[in-house]
């Protein structure tokens, strides 16, 4: 390949690659698959927001959790494509499931819904049991610790819970039609044996595959002001959420920040 041909091929490759990425973005954003309101509880400021001078970009990081009543069981794992033919009690089971590779799936995140309320109710019940002397073995395992954590979660805990997963996002959307409460995103799921005797087969979700939600400059003023005005001691653990983010997701189940709004202290909004 001569220099001239190489130059043309290189320029063509740059153009085609950028065209494909931007075309994919345009296709994704040409229709809103979901539009959901989250707060700092569900989309937190990144760890480096206050201290990394070398990175001026800002991507809010997902904060979500799995409900305590777990649905990612053997049947669901089979549905997701895992081979679950070896019984959990089999001597080969640990080796067999440790060998399974993670699979790409779509997960459904529910915002401030039934799963969150049930989760809180379960924990309140656990607290009551603990006050009667039947505390769990794992932390938190004293009434004081449990109450503190419950209060903190009521104020700042994420209300975004993973409630389902599947390989067909359209089927998931049919099952969860509320586009302002349920977000379908790409994730990854792995399989493992849990429990003290490692006999309980369960899946572990990780994701979303899109690591964070990038905040464009036009939406930054609200967040920049928060970063600037937050005293040192309040940076790690705010007492209440300080901003609200409207997140949209498109045809390719890729999200973007559509609006950022200040909570309290006189509302300020930035949108695109």
């Amino acid at each position, binding site marked *: 390949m001569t220099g001239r041909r190489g130059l043309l091929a290189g320029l063509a*490759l740059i153009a085609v690659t950028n065209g494909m990425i931007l075309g994919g973005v345009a296709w*994704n954003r040409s229709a809103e698959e979901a539009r959901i309101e989250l707060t700092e509880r569900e989309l937190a400021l990144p760890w480096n927001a206050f201290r990394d001078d070398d990175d001026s970009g*800002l991507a809010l990081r997902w904060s979500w959790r799995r409900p305590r009543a777990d649905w990612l069981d053997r049947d669901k794992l089979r549905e997701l494509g895992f081979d679950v033919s070896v019984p959990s009690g089999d001597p080969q089971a640990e080796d067999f499931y440790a060998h399974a590779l993670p699979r790409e799936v779509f997960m459904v995140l529910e915002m401030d819904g039934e799963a969150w309320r049930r989760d809180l109710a379960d924990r309140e019940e656990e607290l009551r049991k603990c006050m009667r002397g039947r505390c769990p073995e794992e932390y938190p395992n004293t009434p004081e610790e449990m109450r503190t954590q419950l209060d903190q979660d009521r104020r700042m805990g994420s209300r975004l819970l993973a409630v389902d997963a599947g390989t067909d996002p359209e089927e998931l959307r049919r099952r969860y039609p509320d586009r302002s409460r349920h977000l379908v995103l790409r994730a990854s799921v792995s399989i493992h044996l849990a429990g003290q005797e490692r006999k309980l087969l369960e899946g572990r979700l990780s994701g979303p595959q899109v690591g964070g939600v*990038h905040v464009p400059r036009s939406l930054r003023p609200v967040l920049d002001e928060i970063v600037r005005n937050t005293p040192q001691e309040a940076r790690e653990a705010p007492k209440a959420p300080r901003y609200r983010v409207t997140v949209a997701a498109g045809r390719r189940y890729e999200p973007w920040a559509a609006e950022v709004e200040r909570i309290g202290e006189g509302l300020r909004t930035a949108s695109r």
Partner: protein
Amino acid sequence: MPEPVAGTAGSKGEAQRRADRISAFRAELASLEREGVLALPEEQRVRVAAYHEVLLRDLAERFDVDVSEGEKQLSWGMRIASFLGALALAASAFFFIRRFWGMLDTPVQVAILAVAPALALLGADFAARRERSGYFAGLIGLVASTCFVLNVALLGEIFNVTPSYGAFLAWGAFGLILAYAYGLRLLLAAGLLSLADWLSSWLITWTGADWTASWERPETFLPAGLLLFATPLLVPHRRRADFAPVYRALGVAVFLFPVLVLANWGEGSFWRAGEGDTIEIAYQILGFAASAAAIWIGIRRGWREVVHTGSVFFVAFLWAKFLDWWWDWMPRYLFFLIVGLTAAAALVALKKARSVMAARPAGGAA
């Protein structure tokens, strides 16, 4: 007097080898004459000297080759300086974009990310035309590659695009385009490794697994290693003869590295027949056999890079085995004594191999 045939040198590597042969011929002829073994008639001496002068001038003009030892040493210095400079410039481009891109609006970010690699590519092309040694083209080419990696990675970040192994294909192709256009072996190696990663990720998706799991199954890299090794056999590199060794050395390394990993971590294998130990033993045998085969083929074909890479892996397999057998119970001084003695034994073996290679005609089969 016949016209010099520098036109047969297709690449800078070949031209440099020809210049080196002329320099060696001149030195040897001077020694033979001094020792009274040979005395060329004056007319022939003048003809040969004039022929070489014209040839060297032509090679220097077309390929910027080094015609003296001093120039050669300076060239090495320049090569090291251009490599370090390229790394520093690439890091500078990375940190510059990261530091300021958050302050820019999205269309400006997109424009900068797309235009930066194109500008750097134009710069590399300009440098290649102005300066035949290729140092500046190599330096700017590495910056162009870094800009292109940033282009794809940051566009993905800005628009929250799901990460995909397709990025490795684009990066690999870009590295290869720059390498073939301007004769840059470093970018050839980087591009080939990127393509190996792409192939491995693509293969793992055939099992239904997430593409990011490719490193959990090192066997997915074995086909890439074989393909790299076979490429110069299937596609002759006449114009870029110095690229064939890069393919072969990387081919051996990309094949043997996963074998080395699996020889010590059987759980990472696709193979489920028997216990982890059985798999590890199988890969240890394969590792020893394949690295010994690489040394043997390298000696037979005169491929020094294959001999060297095979030797490194053979010793690595051997030391890994020693560690496995003896580390827990053997006194440390004895363990390291044995390791040192095996290194000495390897030296003796390689010296023998070198003498076999020296007996063969230089260059060997391409």
